């Protein structure tokens, strides 16, 4: 079997790591610190697949039954 790509699984939404500028923009838009976002652990399979490091912010594009597409963010924590 070829390597298992979790992003192809029907339960896993698409996700990207945000750049520094994008994080800053997001922070200013909501007026929050990035730790105030929901968290995701560094050891999370999604983080490992993306190669995200603690301190990064991940943008998640969920499929939503109400909105069609919903954007969420998670802050990578180091445990």
């Amino acid at each position: 079997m070829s390597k298992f790509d979790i992003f192809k699984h029907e339960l896993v939404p698409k996700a990207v790591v945000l750049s520094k500028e994008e994080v800053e923009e997001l922070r200013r838009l909501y007026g929050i610190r990035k730790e105030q976002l929901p968290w995701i652990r560094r050891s999370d399979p999604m983080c490992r697949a993306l190669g995200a490091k603690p301190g990064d912010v991940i943008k998640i594009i969920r499929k939503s039954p109400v909105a069609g597409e919903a954007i969420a963010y998670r802050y990578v924590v180091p445990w």
Partner: protein
Amino acid sequence: MADPQLVEKIMENYKKNLPKKIFDELKEKLISLNASEDQLNKIIEEVYREYLNSLIEPGEAVGTVAAQSVGEPGTQMTLRTFHYAGVREFNVTLGLPRLIEIVDARRTPSTPTMIIRLDEEHKYSLEKAKEVASKIERITIENIAKSIEYDMINSSFIIEIDEEIAHDKGIDLEYVAKVLGRLKVGNVEIEGNKIIVHCETTSIDKIKRLREKILDLRLKGVKGIKRVLVQKEGDEYVIYTDGSNLAGVLQIKGIDPYKVYTNNIFEIAEVLGIEAARAAIIREAYQVLDQQGLDVDIRHVMLIADLMTMTGRIRQIGRHGVSGEKSSVLARAAFEVTVKHLLEAAAHGEEDALEGVTENVIVGQSIPLGTGIIELLMHFPRRGG
């Protein structure tokens, strides 16, 4: 019919502000409409205004509303509690017990099951589906043995294998002997349909334990999958299992690894991540409510799932999770085990900033909800301007 390009152009500005679903639907409707540019603009503005009106206001007590919206139908479920509805032969916990299991974030559900879809090659033929199923089903010596005896004189186990069953499951005696050999208890011999395992120990305790170990020895299949069932769904065959092991099943050839589903949310969190677990919580909880014929808005369930997965791992709603991790002592004390929280807070000299709802109700201040969420600061004009 309006010009699609015109509609596209007018709607351009709203692409970021409207949810995708509404945007797409509106676009489709507008194109089918026979309207002038002016009219189109007015319609879009009106839709956008309606959308803004339907948004939740800041300060709205969404959590309380979600709790009520799930809790009230829950009281109707209680009467039908502990009902099991089978996928033909399997029992699956449904209704309130299952809902409690989900929000309590139990590590393993009381009835773990998986739904395994097959790849293109295997899904249309019963033969091939069964072939995959046999690779998944866990078979132990106990399943194929007629009897197991301990021979005191030669200090050895005599396992009589039911050859018919063994053949049916695709296992031969040599293979069983080989697996037994891996246990490293002593020499393994085959005699007719019997397998003899010599062992050195004579202590009754050890022999008893060894017997259990031999009976429970996995010959093939995936650990934790007790039974499998191949069922036809539409024109494809789907495997249902009793027992769940997501990581294990993903290793099996012939399945569609991107559609495997389990009702064990912790396994999903471990293998697919917290976002997948969030999706699974929503799916499981909503399914329970839906099956009971209760019409609960999915947004409430989503809020619960969001709260449960906020810290990157699954937290239960309750004393050991969401409620127990509140920063306010008074809020924690108001929930459960009051004295313990108050005593500990006193011993540690904890402070309460009175930022939440519960604390402020207790001390009799206006609560930070609705209009109360606004804090006003006086702006002192500097001298001279």
